[in-house]
């Protein structure tokens, strides 16, 4: 006879859906012999029957608002998000908070000496306005203001800054990855100097978008969904790794899995330990190989323990995924040839 713990799911489900013959027989058999579960069943039934299902009526129509929102989104873009070929990503607008790192404001003394009124220049007022709108979570408004800067000051280095900020909003706040990609592309094409000066984080992000772009950005949407926080998230992240092994998205998924494991076991203080836990929890060979690559990288590049890194990379060489195996081979070659 199944234990009480195993019967509980069936008990709850039977309140809503008739069990199949086997489950019904299992339930009947258990309840006939278990007074505690009979009482549990009675209480759950009483609760189920007592929780009303009052109608939540909805009148009116959201469609006009949705149409307006979609029109606002599509106006600057000539393409549908999921149908646009990469080659067409060339036009418009877009953003980045971290951008100020790479575009530092002039030194105060310089500002005071040469352009004393710079703090209240129209362009700075617009940037401040965009920042306020973003802080108030009016992202569309912020993008509109930044697009205005990019359009009105095309020759100014600030135009690139505005577009990077738009891209950041698209990426971080709205998760509209095609738009973010297009914005970064615009800066790369139109302002190569500004792009060269941009921080590494922005270039890493662009690499991620470039990779995802070849798959209509689906890997990034899947990553968002997997990170959405339900209890099944770890499994979803593992599935993502299996679907896109060797990709940047897979690496991010492994990071997210580490966060989950670290949350679940606060005693794990360092990433390597979290990665070990993730590896133990993964069920699929490809995911395990991806985590082994991360572990190898951690031990080789961060902790500088080549011997331990070798062990992980060596396991990946036998991986069922050729790209991961190549990564491991290259890393092993690098270790062997590093004095």
């Amino acid at each position: 006879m199944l234990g009480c713990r195993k019967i509980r799911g069936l008990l709850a489900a039977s309140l809503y859906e008739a069990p199949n013959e086997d489950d019904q027989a299992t339930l009947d058999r258990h309840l006939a012999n278990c007074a505690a579960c009979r009482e549990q069943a009675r209480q759950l039934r009483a609760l189920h029957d007592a929780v009303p299902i009052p109608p939540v009526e909805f009148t009116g129509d959201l469609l006009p608002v949705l149409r307006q929102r979609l029109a606002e989104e599509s106006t600057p873009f000539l393409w549908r998000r999921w149908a646009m070929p990469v080659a067409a990503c060339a036009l418009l607008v877009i953003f980045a908070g971290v951008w100020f790192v790479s575009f530092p404001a002039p030194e105060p003394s310089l500002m005071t000496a040469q352009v004393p009124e710079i703090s209240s220049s129209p362009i700075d007022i617009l940037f401040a306005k965009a920042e306020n709108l973003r802080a108030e979570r009016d992202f569309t408004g912020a993008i509109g203001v930044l697009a205005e800067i990019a359009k009105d000051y095309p020759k100014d280095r600030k135009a690139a800054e505005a577009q990077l900020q738009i891209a950041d909003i698209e990426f971080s706040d709205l998760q509209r990855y095609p738009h973010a990609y297009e914005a970064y592309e615009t800066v790369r094409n139109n302002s190569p100097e500004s792009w060269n000066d941009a921080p590494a984080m922005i270039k890493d992000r662009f690499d991620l978008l470039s990779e995802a772009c070849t798959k209509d950005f689906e890997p990034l949407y899947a990553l968002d969904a997997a990170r959405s926080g339900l209890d099944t998230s770890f499994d979803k992240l593992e599935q993502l790794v299996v679907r896109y092994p060797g990709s940047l998205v897979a690496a991010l998924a492994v990071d997210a899995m580490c966060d989950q494991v670290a949350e679940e076991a606060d005693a794990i203080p360092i990433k390597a330990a979290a990665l070990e836990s993730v590896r133990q929890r993964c069920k699929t060979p490809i995911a395990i190989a991806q985590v082994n690559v991360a572990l190898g990288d951690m031990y080789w590049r961060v902790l500088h323990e080549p011997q331990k890194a070798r062990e992980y990379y060596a396991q990946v060489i036998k991986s069922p995924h050729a790209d991961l195996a190549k990564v491991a081979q290259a890393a092993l070659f690098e270790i062997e040839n590093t004095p």
Partner: protein
Amino acid sequence: MELSALDDQALALALKSGNTAAFDELVHRHQGRVYAVAYRMTGNRDDALDIAQESLLKAYRKIGSWEPTGGFLPWLLRLTANQSIDHLRRWKRHRHQPLDETYVPETEGAAVEPAAMATESGVRAREIDARVRQSLEVLSPAQKTVFVLRHYEGLPLADIAQQLGCTVGSVKVHLFRALKKLQKELGDLV
């Protein structure tokens, strides 16, 4: 053929292939249920309207990732549940308003809470529903999602499992735990 004659799957496939009129029909068909899920998840009408909008927009943007092997409505309601959870996390606020307050926005759509509850039993049911709504806050995101989609929306457990990417057994366990927690919260009413 009129779009209104098509079933959800056909409309979703049409939308997936670029027919935006199919989106209009899907919105007309399901906006009420999307709103209801958002309201059940958040317990707040204003939030539910915002979430309903965002969820339908998300469905439009992400229709490319919808697989015809799964039903469109479960997919849409799962998006809504996720959007609601994200919303609750982001804002960390759980505002409550009386169920019998009606709210009729002029342009967006009107959310009308349970009417026709004037009888004694109706009043009692309303009180219980208000308590249930408060009690839902003690559920984990997964428990709340499963409970709302099964108890209120009547989605089959198998569909919920498919949408959450877990086994039916796991969904049953979430459901059991949700009911147990509610039992603890509402013990005096049952």
